[in-house]
């Protein structure tokens, strides 16, 4: 550390010297903190670019509504401020018709059609079909021309839909993610029961994840205990066995489970042969298959934190409890279990949060009633290019997960989490 003041200057008085000293100390401290921060800067930048920005981008995508405004800017501007039910006044319709034709010639109208189809199935064809056949001049007004091409243009619904599409941002995806929609008067309504699906799927996602976490804990705790209490000579090879699945492709492991669990598979055959079952039972392509395969895939994530915490618990503590008269059960419950809790907390949280995002495992070993929310995120991203809906579902999952994490932190205490 540097001297508090230059040595050639005499001290004026003791008080100023003390202040000088403190300032210099603070400065040095700050410099050190800054140096430390500079070292972490690449990490901060990395997190910002590859973690924070994508999340913000995703949240923005879920309310993004730029399609109409970017393709038909004038119509969007007019429709945005127009109030009323039913077809808008002729001058707005005229601008709309002209821009629709221009967009069609520029090959950009599909974007608008796609956006409107998200309001209601069938509007894609309405927009494209109209754009294709729209004449250059209107006879008897533009509205009448549009209605002649398709009577739907006389209904209030399409114009309300266009007005919603003209707003700078939209809530239809976020609403749809919780099974709500807007009607012609822009009031929020629940969707018809045959389309209400996402709240169920969200609940299912959390339920499956919770069950898998519990199964991993029940299977992983004794295993981790065994690993921790064995001499290193034995523990290391066993640990490698635990890690082995990590080195095998996920798809191969899932395929193996299908072979094991199927109707004429190894497990069913065995159970029928020894007389436990009269005929094979369905173990795969249903919830059982999903739970078995996911538990298998996620087990190492439970065992490893448990093991590293348990290794740090001195065996002498349990022995001391026993020598003081505790039964083995009491010694475990009062001494060992509380000491291993940080591992339990960390392992459970890790498994639960990883399980929430599972997609390929349920897709391959589950039935249609076992698909989790990621399945629908993938469906909307890849197959219908509805990124708004995909982002809304992902945001819903993110928000609910953060809420649960917060609750967990309140109940268990974040300081008790320990990964090793």
């Amino acid at each position, binding site marked *: 550390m540097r001297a508090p003041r230059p040595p050639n200057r005499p001290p004026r008085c003791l008080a100023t010297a003390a202040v000088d000293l403190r300032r210099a100390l603070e400065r040095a401290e700050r410099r050190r903190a800054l140096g430390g921060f500079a070292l972490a800067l690449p990490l901060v930048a990395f997190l910002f670019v590859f973690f924070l920005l994508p999340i913000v981008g995703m949240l923005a995508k879920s309310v993004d509504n730029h399609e109409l405004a970017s393709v038909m800017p004038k119509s969007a501007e007019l429709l945005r401020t127009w109030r009323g039910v039913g077809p808008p006044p002729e001058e707005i319709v005229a601008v709309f018709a002209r821009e629709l034709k221009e967009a069609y010639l520029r090959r950009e109208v599909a974007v608008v059609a796609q956006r409107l189809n*998200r309001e209601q199935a069938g509007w894609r064809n309405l927009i494209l079909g109209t754009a294709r056949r729209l004449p250059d001049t209107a006879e008897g007004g533009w509205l009448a021309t549009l209605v002649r091409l398709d009577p739907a243009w006389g209904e209030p619904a399409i114009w309300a839909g266009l007005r919603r599409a003209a707003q700078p941002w939209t809530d239809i995806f976020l609403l749809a993610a919780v099974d709500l929609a807007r009607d012609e008067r822009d009031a929020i309504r629940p969707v018809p*029961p045959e*389309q209400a699906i996402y709240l169920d799927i969200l609940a299912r996602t959390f339920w499956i994840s919770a069950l898998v976490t519990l199964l991993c804990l029940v299977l992983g705790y004794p295993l981790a205990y065994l690993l921790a209490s064995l001499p290193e000579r034995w523990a290391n090879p066993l640990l490698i066995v635990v890690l082995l699945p990590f080195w095998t492709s996920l798809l191969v492991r899932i395929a193996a489970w299908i072979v094991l669990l199927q109707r004429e598979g190894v497990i069913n055959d065995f159970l029928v042969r020894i007389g436990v079952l009269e005929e094979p039972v369905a173990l795969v*392509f249903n919830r059982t298959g999903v739970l078995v395969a996911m538990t298998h895939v996620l087990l190492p994530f439970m065992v490893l934190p448990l093991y590293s915490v348990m290794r740090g618990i001195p065996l002498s503590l349990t022995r001391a409890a026993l020598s003081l008269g505790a039964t083995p059960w009491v010694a475990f419950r009062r001494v060992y279990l509380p000491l291993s809790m940080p591992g339990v907390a960390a392992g459970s949280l890790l498994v639960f949060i990883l399980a929430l995002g599972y997609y390929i495992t349920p897709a391959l070993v589950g039935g249609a009633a076992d698909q989790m929310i990621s399945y*629908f995120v993938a469906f909307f991203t*890849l*197959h219908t290019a509805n990124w708004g809906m995909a982002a809304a579902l992902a945001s819903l999952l993110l928000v609910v997960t953060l809420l649960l994490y917060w609750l967990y932190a309140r109940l268990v205490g974040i300081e008790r989490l320990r990964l090793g």
Partner: protein
Amino acid sequence: MTFTRSLAAASLALVLAGVAQARDLTITSWGGAYQAAQRQLYFEPFQKETGIKLVEDTWDGGIGVLRAKAQGTPVWDVVQVETDELILGCEEGILEPLDWQMLGGKDKFLPAAVHECGVGAIVWATVLAYDGNKFPDGGPASWADFFDTRKFPGKRALRRGPRQALEFATMAQGVPPSKVYEALRAPGGIDKAFAKLDSIKKDLIFWEAGAQPPQLLASGEVVMTSAYNGRIIAANRQDKRNFKIAWQAGFVYQIDSWVILKNSPKKAEAMKLVHYLTRPENQAKLPALIPYGPTHVDGAKLVPAEYAEEIPSSPRNLPYGVFFDAAFWVEHVEKLTERFNAWAAQK
């Protein structure tokens, strides 16, 4: 400092080299046994014949993927797409219009294989399949049989999602294949199809990947399933199975197309490749390896007789088929998928 600076310079040079370096012509198809056949029949001979280097990629479809790949300077050139991706992609302007003169004219292909932005690659079908060994006295002969669990007890499988499932459920009500989309578009048609699916819900399981149906049949998990026709025949040829296709039950056939992504830096070579792929004599070679049919009118005539019957467009099969109505599905797929999943999730 000099070290850091030279490192920075080196990496910048690398990046620039990467950008400046012209990439090779890239073709993207559907992987697996199918792309292996394409490699042997088309990709390798093309490189030898023209000296143009060809790089392969694979995908599983999806307009979202295609859109992402087409941004800026595309990383793919020639892609095999399904009909709905062709329609959407062409409307959105992410595909190049093809040079039909070079391909020999639009009248040389099946009408359904002709599009401004795409030319038919293969004719394939989703069919009703079963294991012949499990039904020595004759298997299911209609989609009504598929939905009749008293006559044919046991589990059955359909592709997860509404596509083809609704078509088959409509055929099961006695609607002839050619009238299926008319029936689905009629008021209440979709409700009726869902009601039909509902009638065997507890015996239904769903598959996701094309490789699953033969596996489900082989393992005895299901007694019958919907399947891609090529995979069933491939299982018979390679694994000595005795799987049967009930062509007469009715089937949905589709045409996959070759397209070129907009702004492809290799457009001329890409067009050359598309021409090579769609030459009749080349198309006719495919059914011997995997029974997907040619789209070129002359190609269909050149297929060796012993393979000709197994392709969807053969004179024996075609009368039972209905062409996949991409316009219907482009419009309805999102809402119907949501409805299908809501239906499937209810106990």
